[in-house]
């Protein structure tokens, strides 16, 4: 009897486990399919639904929030899709949202994506109609792909021609076979590296100089940054301008003076050449010049004799004392 009870308990646990699993499974499915959620219906207009059927999922921001309730072909350009959205979407989806057809994954089931618009609008209400966006069909994609393939073909043909030309080019072959080229290239690269290093060092120096200038250090820094220096420089420039003005006036005066002197010289020259005065005679008349020379000779002789006389007078007892007095006075001064 005890064994029977144990068996019954085991059986009870076994059956209960199965039922619990079944209930849990149905609960998760119902949660997933929102089968107990209250829904409201809206409609979406499409020109082509590309295989959409009732029961397909409806997503908002990538989350399943409803199902396609019905797909109705109204005429050759209009398909009305009835969408059952979960009730909580009344607070999320807006009237100006659009409906776009999509696919779950690359080859999955068709679905409807409800896309929000940028502009503000009131919240959606039952019976509202959403505009459907044009679907990008596989045919469209293939057509674009075909065009892309053609372009790729053209590009690859061009590339092939270029490569053929490169392969046939003797200059390039020569260039590639030239062993010294790599050495030269290496040397050039080394030089370039060195030059780059130097340029970098120069730039660093330049940066330091610029930093000094910014800090107002050095002549250029002072020139650019020191306001007192600028004031002094300004004053100097002003003074230089004044000096320049004075020099200008001086030059004008000099010019006038030169003109006057020039006039005077010209007058003198004229008088010398053509004037009735003694100068003209002195310069032009050779006889007068000879007389003058003679007179000068006589004057020189006279002067020499006068010097002798004066020397004699110095030694004369009448005048000796006077001359000595004069010499003493001269020494005192």
């Amino acid at each position, binding site marked *: 009897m005890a064994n*029977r009870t144990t*068996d019954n308990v085991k*059986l009870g646990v076994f059956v209960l486990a199965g039922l619990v699993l079944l209930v849990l499974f149905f609960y*998760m499915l119902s949660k997933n399919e929102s089968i107990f959620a209250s829904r409201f219906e809206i409609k979406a207009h499409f020109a082509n639904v590309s295989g959409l059927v009732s029961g397909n999922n409806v997503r908002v921001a990538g989350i399943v929030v409803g199902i396609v309730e019905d797909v109705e072909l109204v005429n050759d350009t209009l398909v009305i899709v009835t969408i059952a959205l979960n009730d909580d979407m009344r607070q999320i989806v807006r009237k100006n949202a659009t409906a776009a057809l999509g696919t779950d994954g690359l080859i999955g089931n068709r679905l409807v994506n409800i896309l929000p618009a940028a502009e503000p609008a009131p919240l959606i209400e039952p019976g509202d109609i959403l505009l459907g966006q044009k679907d990008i069909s596989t045919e469209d994609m293939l057509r674009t792909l075909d065009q892309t393939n053609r372009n790729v073909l053209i590009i690859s043909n061009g590339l092939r021609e270029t490569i053929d030309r490169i392969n046939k080019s003797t200059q390039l072959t020569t260039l590639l076979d030239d062993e010294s080229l790599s050495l030269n290239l290496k040397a050039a690269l080394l030089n370039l590296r060195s030059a780059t290093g130097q340029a970098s060092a120069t730039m660093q120096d330049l940066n330091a100089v610029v930093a000094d200038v910014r800090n107002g250090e050095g002549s250029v820094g002072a020139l650019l940054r020191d306001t007192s220096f600028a004031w002094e420089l300004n004053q100097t420039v002003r003074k230089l301008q004044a000096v320049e003005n004075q020099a200008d006036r001086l030059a004008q005066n000099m010019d006038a003076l030169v003109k006057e002197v020039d006039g005077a010289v010209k007058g003198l020259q004229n008088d010398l050449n053509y004037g009735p005065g003694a100068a003209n005679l002195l310069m032009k008349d050779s006889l007068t010049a000879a007389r003058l020379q003679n007179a000068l000779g006589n004057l020189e002789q006279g002067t020499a004799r006068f010097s002798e006389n004066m020397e004699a007078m110095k030694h004369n007892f009448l005048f000796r004392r006077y001359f000595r007095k004069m010499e003493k006075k001269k020494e005192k001064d």
Partner: protein
Amino acid sequence: MARFTARFFREAFHPRYEFSELIRQCFIIGYKSLSLVGLTAFIMGLVLTMQLRPSMVRYGVEAEIPAMVGISIIREIGPIITALIFAGKIGSSIGAELGSMRVTEQIDAMEVSGTNPFKYLVVTRTVAATLMLPVLVILADAIALYGSYLGVNIYEILSFKLFYTLVIDNLGYYDVIPAIIKTFFFGFAVGIVGCFKGYYSSKGTEGVGRSANSAVVMASVFIFILDLLAVQITELVWNL
């Protein structure tokens, strides 16, 4: 066989009911099959995942393995494999048990003593098989999915939450309800065939073995036929 089935329904809905024997049979048929079914289901889920993986990787859709294994197990493999294991274990057991009772004239003795052997032996076993197989299938599905989860984690790290989310996301009532309903029919088929073969066993002990063997073979064929019918009926009903 048809008359036997018709008699089953007549006897099943007609008092007096053998509840005590039914509970005992449920324990024997259901609980005692759990270890075998559980082990088979675990290996089935694990192996299915491992076998499926290379093909899925080749097409770059290994992320879909949980979804694919989930659908396969819930819709088809879980019920069918469990039913076949059940047929092998329970069908043969019922066939052999009733067969030996028949050849040792125990059933005749029951009739003579006033006990209804059909009600006591056939109805209880068939009802127990009908009720226990769905429970076994549900548990087997869960165990197989856990095996599949471990199978996925041999090659990559996948959280259990993501695994069951992927499984549940790709399943619907359309997948689960018909799969559960058809297991009642599978259980009934196994029970009724086993009882039929055992109940009408003959030719001594040799007949017992034949009854057990033919019970398994016939039950297995019935399971496949019922599965085919279940798919057709499901398609028909769901698209109405």
